[in-house]
Protein backbone atom coordinates (compact mmCIF):
# COMPACT_ATOMS: atom_id res chain seq x y z
CA UNK A 1 0.00 0.00 0.00
CA UNK A 2 1.50 3.23 -1.06
CA UNK A 3 0.44 6.24 1.01
CA UNK A 4 -0.77 9.04 -1.10
CA UNK A 5 0.17 12.45 0.28
CA UNK A 6 -2.45 14.30 -1.79
CA UNK A 7 -5.40 12.69 -0.13
CA UNK A 8 -5.85 13.61 3.49
CA UNK A 9 -5.82 10.68 5.89
CA UNK A 10 -9.41 9.58 6.23
CA UNK A 11 -10.33 8.39 9.63
CA UNK A 12 -11.78 4.94 10.19
CA UNK A 13 -15.28 4.87 8.65
CA UNK A 14 -17.93 5.17 11.29
CA UNK A 15 -19.75 2.06 10.09
CA UNK A 16 -16.71 0.01 10.84
CA UNK A 17 -16.42 1.61 14.22
CA UNK A 18 -20.04 1.23 15.19
CA UNK A 19 -21.42 -1.79 13.42
CA UNK A 20 -20.05 -5.21 14.35
CA UNK A 21 -18.97 -7.39 11.48
CA UNK A 22 -21.56 -9.88 12.61
CA UNK A 23 -24.28 -7.66 11.16
CA UNK A 24 -22.74 -7.80 7.74
CA UNK A 25 -22.50 -11.54 8.03
CA UNK A 26 -26.17 -11.75 8.84
CA UNK A 27 -27.19 -9.29 6.17
CA UNK A 28 -25.34 -11.04 3.41
CA UNK A 29 -26.43 -14.46 4.58
CA UNK A 30 -30.01 -13.20 4.44
CA UNK A 31 -29.45 -11.98 0.90
CA UNK A 32 -27.89 -15.32 0.02
CA UNK A 33 -30.81 -17.22 1.44
CA UNK A 34 -33.31 -15.01 -0.36
CA UNK A 35 -31.44 -15.91 -3.52
CA UNK A 36 -31.76 -19.61 -2.71
CA UNK A 37 -35.45 -19.26 -2.02
CA UNK A 38 -35.86 -17.43 -5.30
CA UNK A 39 -34.19 -20.27 -7.18
CA UNK A 40 -36.39 -22.77 -5.43
CA UNK A 41 -39.72 -21.01 -5.86
CA UNK A 42 -39.64 -19.54 -9.33
CA UNK A 43 -40.03 -21.31 -12.63
CA UNK A 44 -39.05 -18.60 -15.02
CA UNK A 45 -35.45 -19.20 -16.02
CA UNK A 46 -34.67 -15.49 -16.07
CA UNK A 47 -35.97 -14.91 -12.55
CA UNK A 48 -34.06 -17.93 -11.32
CA UNK A 49 -31.00 -16.50 -12.88
CA UNK A 50 -31.59 -13.15 -11.21
CA UNK A 51 -31.86 -14.94 -7.89
CA UNK A 52 -28.48 -16.46 -8.57
CA UNK A 53 -27.20 -12.94 -9.14
CA UNK A 54 -28.51 -12.07 -5.69
CA UNK A 55 -26.49 -14.92 -4.25
CA UNK A 56 -23.36 -13.64 -5.96
CA UNK A 57 -23.98 -10.17 -4.62
CA UNK A 58 -24.38 -11.49 -1.12
CA UNK A 59 -20.89 -12.89 -1.47
CA UNK A 60 -19.65 -9.58 -2.87
CA UNK A 61 -21.03 -7.62 0.06
CA UNK A 62 -19.51 -9.98 2.57
CA UNK A 63 -16.16 -9.97 0.80
CA UNK A 64 -16.02 -6.19 0.86
CA UNK A 65 -17.06 -6.11 4.49
CA UNK A 66 -14.36 -8.57 5.47
CA UNK A 67 -11.86 -6.75 3.34
CA UNK A 68 -12.64 -3.35 4.88
CA UNK A 69 -12.69 -4.58 8.45
CA UNK A 70 -9.35 -6.29 7.98
CA UNK A 71 -8.04 -3.51 5.75
CA UNK A 72 -6.87 -6.17 3.35
CA UNK A 73 -7.45 -5.20 -0.28
CA UNK A 74 -7.41 -8.71 -1.74
CA UNK A 75 -11.07 -9.24 -0.86
CA UNK A 76 -12.04 -6.21 -2.91
CA UNK A 77 -9.96 -7.37 -5.83
CA UNK A 78 -11.79 -10.66 -5.64
CA UNK A 79 -15.10 -8.83 -5.97
CA UNK A 80 -13.77 -7.26 -9.11
CA UNK A 81 -13.25 -10.71 -10.56
CA UNK A 82 -16.65 -11.88 -9.44
CA UNK A 83 -18.19 -9.06 -11.40
CA UNK A 84 -16.31 -10.14 -14.50
CA UNK A 85 -17.43 -13.71 -14.00
CA UNK A 86 -21.01 -12.61 -13.44
CA UNK A 87 -20.93 -10.64 -16.65
CA UNK A 88 -19.66 -13.66 -18.55
CA UNK A 89 -22.25 -15.92 -17.03
CA UNK A 90 -25.03 -13.49 -17.80
CA UNK A 91 -23.98 -13.23 -21.42
CA UNK A 92 -23.94 -16.97 -21.92
CA UNK A 93 -26.97 -17.61 -19.76
CA UNK A 94 -29.14 -15.13 -21.57
CA UNK A 95 -27.93 -16.50 -24.90
CA UNK A 96 -29.03 -19.97 -23.82
CA UNK A 97 -32.39 -18.63 -22.68
CA UNK A 98 -32.89 -16.79 -25.95
CA UNK A 99 -31.96 -19.92 -27.88
CA UNK A 100 -34.52 -21.93 -25.98
CA UNK A 101 -37.15 -19.26 -26.42
CA UNK A 102 -36.59 -19.45 -30.16
CA UNK A 103 -37.30 -23.17 -30.15
CA UNK A 104 -40.05 -23.41 -27.57
CA UNK A 105 -41.48 -19.92 -27.19
CA UNK A 106 -41.09 -20.31 -23.47
CA UNK A 107 -38.64 -19.76 -20.67
CA UNK A 108 -40.44 -21.81 -18.07
CA UNK A 109 -38.19 -24.55 -16.78
CA UNK A 110 -41.23 -26.61 -15.87
CA UNK A 111 -41.72 -27.45 -19.54
CA UNK A 112 -38.23 -28.73 -19.98
CA UNK A 113 -38.40 -32.34 -18.94
CA UNK A 114 -37.73 -34.36 -22.04
CA UNK A 115 -34.55 -35.71 -20.44
CA UNK A 116 -35.30 -37.81 -17.46
CA UNK A 117 -34.96 -41.23 -15.80
Amino acid at each position, binding site marked *: *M*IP*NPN*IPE*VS*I*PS*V*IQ*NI*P*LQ*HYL*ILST*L*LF*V*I*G*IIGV*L*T*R*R*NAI*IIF*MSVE*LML*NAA*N*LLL*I*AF*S*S*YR*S*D*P*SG*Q*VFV*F*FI*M*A*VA*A*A*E*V*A*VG*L*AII*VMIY*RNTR*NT*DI*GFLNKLKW
Partner: protein
Amino acid sequence: MNSTVSFFYFLSFLTILSAVMVVVSRNPIHSVLYLILAFFTLSGHYILLNAQFLAAVNIIVYAGAIMVLFLFVIMFLNMKQDNEEAKTNIAKIAATIVGGTVFVILFGAYRKSAIPAFNPENFDSQVGMIENLGHILFREYLLPFELASILLLVAMVGAVMLGKREIGERHF
Protein backbone atom coordinates in the same frame (compact mmCIF):
# COMPACT_ATOMS: atom_id res chain seq x y z
CA MET B 1 -27.22 6.32 17.54
CA ASN B 2 -25.26 8.20 15.02
CA SER B 3 -26.48 8.91 11.57
CA THR B 4 -24.27 6.49 9.68
CA VAL B 5 -25.50 3.67 11.85
CA SER B 6 -29.13 4.44 11.24
CA PHE B 7 -28.31 4.89 7.59
CA PHE B 8 -26.77 1.41 7.64
CA TYR B 9 -29.92 -0.09 9.05
CA PHE B 10 -32.07 1.78 6.58
CA LEU B 11 -29.93 0.61 3.68
CA SER B 12 -29.95 -2.94 4.96
CA PHE B 13 -33.70 -2.89 5.26
CA LEU B 14 -34.00 -1.55 1.75
CA THR B 15 -31.60 -4.18 0.45
CA ILE B 16 -33.52 -7.03 1.99
CA LEU B 17 -36.84 -5.60 0.93
CA SER B 18 -35.83 -5.15 -2.68
CA ALA B 19 -34.26 -8.60 -2.72
CA VAL B 20 -37.50 -10.09 -1.47
CA MET B 21 -39.42 -8.14 -4.08
CA VAL B 22 -37.14 -9.54 -6.80
CA VAL B 23 -38.19 -13.00 -5.78
CA VAL B 24 -41.89 -12.40 -5.26
CA SER B 25 -42.74 -10.01 -8.10
CA ARG B 26 -45.07 -11.55 -10.64
CA ASN B 27 -43.83 -9.35 -13.43
CA PRO B 28 -40.27 -10.03 -14.60
CA ILE B 29 -39.74 -6.36 -15.38
CA HIS B 30 -40.56 -5.44 -11.82
CA SER B 31 -38.09 -8.05 -10.67
CA VAL B 32 -35.37 -6.50 -12.74
CA LEU B 33 -36.15 -3.06 -11.44
CA TYR B 34 -36.10 -4.25 -7.84
CA LEU B 35 -32.81 -5.98 -8.52
CA ILE B 36 -31.39 -2.72 -9.81
CA LEU B 37 -32.61 -1.06 -6.65
CA ALA B 38 -30.89 -3.76 -4.63
CA PHE B 39 -27.67 -3.07 -6.48
CA PHE B 40 -27.90 0.61 -5.71
CA THR B 41 -28.38 -0.10 -2.02
CA LEU B 42 -25.43 -2.47 -2.14
CA SER B 43 -23.34 0.30 -3.66
CA GLY B 44 -24.45 2.40 -0.71
CA HIS B 45 -23.06 -0.25 1.58
CA TYR B 46 -19.82 -0.28 -0.32
CA ILE B 47 -19.47 3.46 0.14
CA LEU B 48 -20.14 3.10 3.84
CA LEU B 49 -17.40 0.53 3.94
CA ASN B 50 -15.06 2.94 2.21
CA ALA B 51 -14.87 0.88 -0.99
CA GLN B 52 -15.63 3.72 -3.37
CA PHE B 53 -14.13 2.14 -6.44
CA LEU B 54 -16.20 -0.99 -6.18
CA ALA B 55 -19.27 1.06 -5.44
CA ALA B 56 -18.78 2.81 -8.76
CA VAL B 57 -18.01 -0.39 -10.61
CA ASN B 58 -21.04 -2.02 -9.12
CA ILE B 59 -23.29 0.68 -10.51
CA ILE B 60 -21.60 0.70 -13.87
CA VAL B 61 -21.17 -3.01 -14.44
CA TYR B 62 -24.02 -4.55 -12.55
CA ALA B 63 -26.79 -2.04 -12.62
CA GLY B 64 -25.63 -0.46 -15.83
CA ALA B 65 -24.61 -3.35 -18.03
CA ILE B 66 -25.76 -6.63 -16.65
CA MET B 67 -29.20 -5.53 -15.58
CA VAL B 68 -29.78 -3.69 -18.80
CA LEU B 69 -28.98 -6.92 -20.57
CA PHE B 70 -31.61 -8.64 -18.48
CA LEU B 71 -34.12 -5.95 -19.15
CA PHE B 72 -33.32 -6.05 -22.82
CA VAL B 73 -33.85 -9.77 -23.07
CA ILE B 74 -37.07 -9.65 -21.08
CA MET B 75 -38.52 -6.98 -23.27
CA PHE B 76 -37.15 -8.66 -26.35
CA LEU B 77 -38.94 -11.87 -25.49
CA ASN B 78 -41.99 -9.86 -24.56
CA MET B 79 -42.49 -11.60 -21.27
CA LYS B 80 -45.61 -10.88 -19.32
CA GLN B 81 -46.41 -11.82 -15.83
CA ASP B 82 -49.02 -14.40 -16.75
CA ASN B 83 -46.45 -16.32 -18.73
CA GLU B 84 -45.31 -18.09 -15.67
CA GLU B 85 -47.26 -20.91 -14.13
CA ALA B 86 -47.01 -20.51 -10.42
CA LYS B 87 -45.65 -23.29 -8.34
CA THR B 88 -47.97 -24.71 -5.74
CA ASN B 89 -48.08 -23.01 -2.41
CA ILE B 90 -46.76 -26.09 -0.68
CA ALA B 91 -43.67 -25.99 -2.82
CA LYS B 92 -43.20 -22.34 -1.99
CA ILE B 93 -43.62 -22.87 1.72
CA ALA B 94 -41.26 -25.83 1.63
CA ALA B 95 -38.69 -23.78 -0.25
CA THR B 96 -38.97 -20.98 2.26
CA ILE B 97 -38.59 -23.35 5.17
CA VAL B 98 -35.56 -24.98 3.61
CA GLY B 99 -34.03 -21.59 2.87
CA GLY B 100 -34.77 -20.45 6.40
CA THR B 101 -33.04 -23.57 7.71
CA VAL B 102 -29.93 -22.71 5.75
CA PHE B 103 -29.97 -19.29 7.38
CA VAL B 104 -30.48 -20.70 10.86
CA ILE B 105 -27.66 -23.20 10.43
CA LEU B 106 -25.24 -20.60 9.12
CA PHE B 107 -26.28 -18.22 11.84
CA GLY B 108 -25.63 -20.94 14.39
CA ALA B 109 -22.20 -21.47 12.91
CA TYR B 110 -21.41 -17.75 13.18
CA ARG B 111 -22.52 -17.77 16.77
CA LYS B 112 -20.13 -20.55 17.57
CA SER B 113 -17.03 -18.85 16.26
CA ALA B 114 -15.18 -15.68 17.06
CA ILE B 115 -15.72 -12.96 14.44
CA PRO B 116 -12.54 -11.04 13.78
CA ALA B 117 -13.01 -7.39 14.69
CA PHE B 118 -11.15 -4.49 13.07
CA ASN B 119 -7.82 -3.42 14.41
CA PRO B 120 -7.61 0.36 14.94
CA GLU B 121 -3.80 0.30 15.25
CA ASN B 122 -2.91 -0.56 11.74
CA PHE B 123 -6.17 0.27 10.04
CA ASP B 124 -5.69 1.55 6.57
CA SER B 125 -8.68 3.43 5.23
CA GLN B 126 -7.17 3.59 1.76
CA VAL B 127 -7.56 -0.07 0.79
CA GLY B 128 -10.67 0.54 -1.23
CA MET B 129 -9.16 3.32 -3.28
CA ILE B 130 -8.45 2.90 -6.92
CA GLU B 131 -4.66 3.30 -6.73
CA ASN B 132 -4.38 0.71 -4.10
CA LEU B 133 -6.55 -1.80 -5.89
CA GLY B 134 -4.80 -1.07 -9.17
CA HIS B 135 -1.44 -1.84 -7.68
CA ILE B 136 -2.59 -5.17 -6.39
CA LEU B 137 -4.66 -6.05 -9.39
CA PHE B 138 -1.82 -5.53 -11.81
CA ARG B 139 0.88 -7.02 -9.71
CA GLU B 140 -0.21 -9.91 -7.55
CA TYR B 141 -3.36 -10.60 -9.49
CA LEU B 142 -1.91 -10.18 -12.94
CA LEU B 143 -2.27 -13.80 -13.95
CA PRO B 144 -5.93 -14.20 -12.99
CA PHE B 145 -6.61 -10.79 -14.48
CA GLU B 146 -5.22 -11.88 -17.82
CA LEU B 147 -6.98 -15.21 -17.65
CA ALA B 148 -10.27 -13.51 -16.83
CA SER B 149 -10.03 -12.10 -20.31
CA ILE B 150 -10.13 -15.68 -21.59
CA LEU B 151 -13.33 -16.10 -19.64
CA LEU B 152 -14.84 -13.04 -21.23
CA LEU B 153 -13.72 -14.21 -24.64
CA VAL B 154 -15.31 -17.58 -24.05
CA ALA B 155 -18.52 -15.90 -23.00
CA MET B 156 -18.47 -13.68 -26.06
CA VAL B 157 -17.83 -16.48 -28.51
CA GLY B 158 -20.38 -18.65 -26.78
CA ALA B 159 -23.07 -16.02 -26.63
CA VAL B 160 -22.64 -15.15 -30.28
CA MET B 161 -22.60 -18.76 -31.32
CA LEU B 162 -25.76 -19.61 -29.42
CA GLY B 163 -27.60 -16.38 -29.89
CA LYS B 164 -27.12 -15.72 -33.57
CA ARG B 165 -29.89 -16.50 -35.95
CA GLU B 166 -29.33 -19.39 -38.30
CA ILE B 167 -30.36 -19.19 -41.91
CA GLY B 168 -34.02 -19.99 -42.18
CA GLU B 169 -34.76 -19.40 -38.55
CA ARG B 170 -37.43 -16.94 -37.52
CA HIS B 171 -36.38 -13.73 -35.88
CA PHE B 172 -38.41 -14.06 -32.74
